[in-house]
């Protein structure tokens, strides 16, 4: 099969539980254009940027013997290296905030990106989805979304499959990626993808230079529908499900926060995340959740 899409790294950037895996599944199915859905355990689109295996391939020394601060400084160089030598389109998932902190170079820039697809989801829904994913209480999940120091793979007591990822507060995370400079970027809301998948996934196809004819996009959308993914997980499991979580594909809806979150938890999120929520239309003019 001829190479599809412009060579280089296409970043699939999102806060966790915001539709990133859905996007990867769509792209895998669009590339494959098969009669049956692609196996969710064989989404060979390019992996995740924080994978130790990917870093260990290029850092010359094991990432496990480097500090998380060192890796924050080295990862941008690895990303540039991979991008500059890519002979085909590679779709790399990333949950890190664009920048780990002041004085740390951004993980992605013009020298390491063909483009960035940013997927944003209402933090009120992210909170309950993440509680399940992280195996923590709703209160804890809400606090993590509001914590400027929040991150993934923070343990330094054993070696995980991924290195530390700084997330920070949800609002800073989404505003950071949305504001990336000098890189082609496509901003998508999870809720819009749910409402009109054919239109928005066709936009994705055009953005990265993949075939966008209605039939092919429709097949890829159908093969990456929530019920198809959930059925695959029920049958064969999903390798990306965390140990503490029963199911990775759990509900895939918008607005379920109304049943799942307590008023105090909603207020806490709105209070901490107002800039991003306003920017992406999750709050109305009166500051009420939409």
């Amino acid at each position: 099969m001829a190479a599809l899409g412009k060579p280089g790294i296409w970043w699939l950037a999102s806060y966790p539980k915001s539709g990133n895996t859905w996007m990867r599944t769509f792209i895998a199915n669009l590339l494959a254009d098969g009669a049956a859905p692609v196996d969710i355990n064989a989404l060979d689109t390019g992996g995740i940027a924080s994978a130790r295996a990917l870093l260990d391939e290029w850092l010359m020394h094991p990432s496990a013997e480097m500090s998380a601060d060192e890796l924050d400084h080295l990862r941008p160089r690895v990303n540039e290296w991979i991008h500059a030598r890519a002979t085909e389109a590679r779709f790399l998932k990333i949950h890190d905030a664009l920048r780990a902190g002041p004085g740390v170079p951004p993980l992605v820039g013009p020298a390491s990106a063909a483009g960035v697809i940013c997927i944003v989801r209402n933090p009120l829904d992210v909170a309950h989805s993440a509680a399940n994913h992280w195996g923590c209480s709703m209160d804890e999940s809400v606090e993590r979304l509001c914590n400027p120091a929040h991150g993934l793979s923070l343990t330094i007591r054993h070696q995980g499959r991924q290195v530390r990822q700084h997330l920070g507060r949800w609002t800073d995370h989404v505003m950071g990626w949305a504001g990336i400079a000098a890189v082609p970027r496509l901003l998508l809301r999870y809720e819009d993808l749910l409402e009109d998948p054919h239109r928005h996934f066709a936009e994705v196809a055009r953005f990265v230079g993949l075939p966008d004819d209605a039939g092919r996009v429709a097949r890829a959308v159908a093969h990456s529908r929530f019920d198809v993914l959930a059925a695959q997980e029920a049958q064969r499991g999903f390798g990306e499900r965390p140990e503490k979580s029963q199911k990775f594909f759990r509900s895939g809806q918008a607005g379920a926060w109304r049943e799942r979150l307590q008023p105090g938890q909603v207020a806490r999120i709105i209070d901490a995340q107002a800039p991003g929520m306003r920017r992406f239309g999750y709050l109305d003019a009166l500051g009420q959740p939409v």
Partner: protein
Amino acid sequence: MRYLCYDLLIDSDLPLPELHEAPAVRLDGEPDVLIREGALPEEGSAYGQPIGPLAWATPRCLFMRAALCGRFLIEDGRRITWALAPGQDLASLRLFLLGSALGALLTQRGVFVLHGNAIRVGDGALVCVGPSGAGKSTLAAGLLGRGLRALADDVVALDARGRVLPGLPRIKLWQDAAEKLALDTQGLNRLRPGIEKFSVPMEDGAEWGAQPLRGVYELHVHRKDSVEIEPVRGIERVKLLQLNLYRQNFQAVQPTRPEHLMMLARLSGATRVARVRRPEFGFALDALMDALLADLEA
């Protein structure tokens, strides 16, 4: 100071407490390897083509940055020049020196080097390779707990007859793994300041000499509760061994070596080669060790 490691007499201006000093009978010989401090530039474009974001190489020369700690220049399989970055510590630099820099030097010398660790089992060596995080070090430490001895850590070098050379006498263990094995990390050296990974020192294996390679096991995790061993046969053996050569990007700049092809043929004919899968959640260390040792004896 002079040390013996991988049967190389190493003369170093940087004290290397991780290595055992060379025995008196070897002290007077011409050293095989010189390790010296020297001025090195920040980047290595003067030394060859880039082979990664932090390394430049020709077949006889490799310049690499050791994360943010410093730089190394490895030349002719004989000399390592080191430079410590301002504000960095020597323990960190030594970790990278005794890992990748030494591995690169062995590669330049044409030594067949596997990425993994080696344990002495009976009158031979069991070599465990596999992706980072599969649990190679925990497995090695577990086997040590059963009274076996470590031969080499991270860099497994074979001699011309395909035997495992005694290498770095230690095992590197994370805090959690040490606790799982009921090992107290209080008295152990941290590999680097700020990293909860410890060095478990071993007795010097140099006196044992090179050990026949009895088995190569590629360790993986899977989402089952069982430990499974799948023998690898035919040409797949050669592929598995090739894929586990030390750092593919070092190998890529090396000329094709007929002796390596001979070695691959020899190993794939004479050695057990298998893929081993252990549960991702819950290590099943005892079951894994039982299965491996039984397989080796089978």
